[in-house]
């Protein structure tokens, strides 16, 4: 091997390696984006509505799913992919509600990517025994930053912000708001206990993303649950 450049030639060869600039002009996340396109096509072919739930840890993603399953289990077929860094606690909670769930543990990574969804969906299919799904929920790893970078091939991205987190979250995490189609403000029963400005959070979120749909919910009192379920059904039959 040549000592100068590491090429396969003998040492004595003339160094005529040419430097060339290759125009690329493509996304840094191309590999994930390509896999997302393939996931989406797969969901479309099967008539599945795929929904990606993102939020900070503890905003109530799993609780929202539990309540959604309770309301819709007898009407539509639901499957869940649960993303977490460790444990299958959340998949267990979902299975306890009687719907198939696959836990995706990232082992440290703070977001799901499209390749994980591809693998996870195939292992979910094994639990379905040929039955088709109407809705696939993907519960992302609890994190308001990184999941917003990774398209999973979902049709709808939903971001949850719970009242205890504070009304300043949209302006602090603009990408999560800008890349989502729905904002769910959860734990609304706690508004009276926190210095939480509902008007401000809505105004800021809409300034970042004018087409954002905002639903205020409480799994405790049931506020907003009907609106949420109506949204889902409407989106499913669109």
């Amino acid at each position, binding site marked *: 091997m040549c000592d100068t*450049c*590491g*090429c396969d030639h003998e040492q004595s060869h003339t160094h005529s*390696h*040419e*430097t*060339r*600039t*290759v*125009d*690329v*002009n*493509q*996304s*840094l*996340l*191309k*590999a*994930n984006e390509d896999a997302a396109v393939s996931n989406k096509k797969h969901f479309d072919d099967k008539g599945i509505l795929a929904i990606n739930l993102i939020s900070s840890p503890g905003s109530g993603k799993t609780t929202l799913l539990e309540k959604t399953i309770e309301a819709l289990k007898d009407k539509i077929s639901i499957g869940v992919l649960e993303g977490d860094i460790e444990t299958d606690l959340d998949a267990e909670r979902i299975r306890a509600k009687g719907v198939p769930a696959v836990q995706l543990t990232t082992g440290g*990574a*703070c*977001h799901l*990517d499209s390749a994980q969804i591809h693998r996870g969906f195939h292992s979910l299919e094994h639990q379905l025994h040929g039955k088709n799904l109407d809705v696939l929920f993907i519960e992302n790893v609890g994190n308001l*930053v*990184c999941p*917003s*970078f*990774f398209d999973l091939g979902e049709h709808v991205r939903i971001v949850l912000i719970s009242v205890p987190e504070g009304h300043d979250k949209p*302006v602090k995490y*603009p*990408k999560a708001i800008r890349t989502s189609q729905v904002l769910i403000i959860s734990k609304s029963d706690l508004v009276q206990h926190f210095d939480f400005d509902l008007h401000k959070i809505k105004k*800021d979120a809409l*300034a*970042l993303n004018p087409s954002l749909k905002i639903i205020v919910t409480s799994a405790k009192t049931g506020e907003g649950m009907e609106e949420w379920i109506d949204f889902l059904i409407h989106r499913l039959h669109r």
Partner: protein
Amino acid sequence: MHEVSIALGMLDELFRIAQENHAIKITRVKLKIGKMSGIVTDSLKFAFDAVKLEHPLLSQAEIVIEEVPLVYKCNDCHVSFNAADIYFPACPECGSGNLQLVSGEEQHIESVEVEI
């Protein structure tokens, strides 16, 4: 810390580009990163410099980042203007808040310099 995942994805793309161009070495990677992309350029550089070392093809690659400013266009009077941040600019001409983002969310590999 999504920058490590992004850097790893970038490696795969660079290998593909190197192979397509029969390159023996990648010497420079030019990126365009928007001010509002959410990518921390220092973290991305740090992550890339850490992961590239394992790969002789890339170990000498230098990463050059062009930061793209945040530019809005007013939907009412059609003036384009640079904004310092996203919270929440108004059109400097007519004061309208009805704006569209023209640039600032880029996250692109613009070009790659290879040795063949």
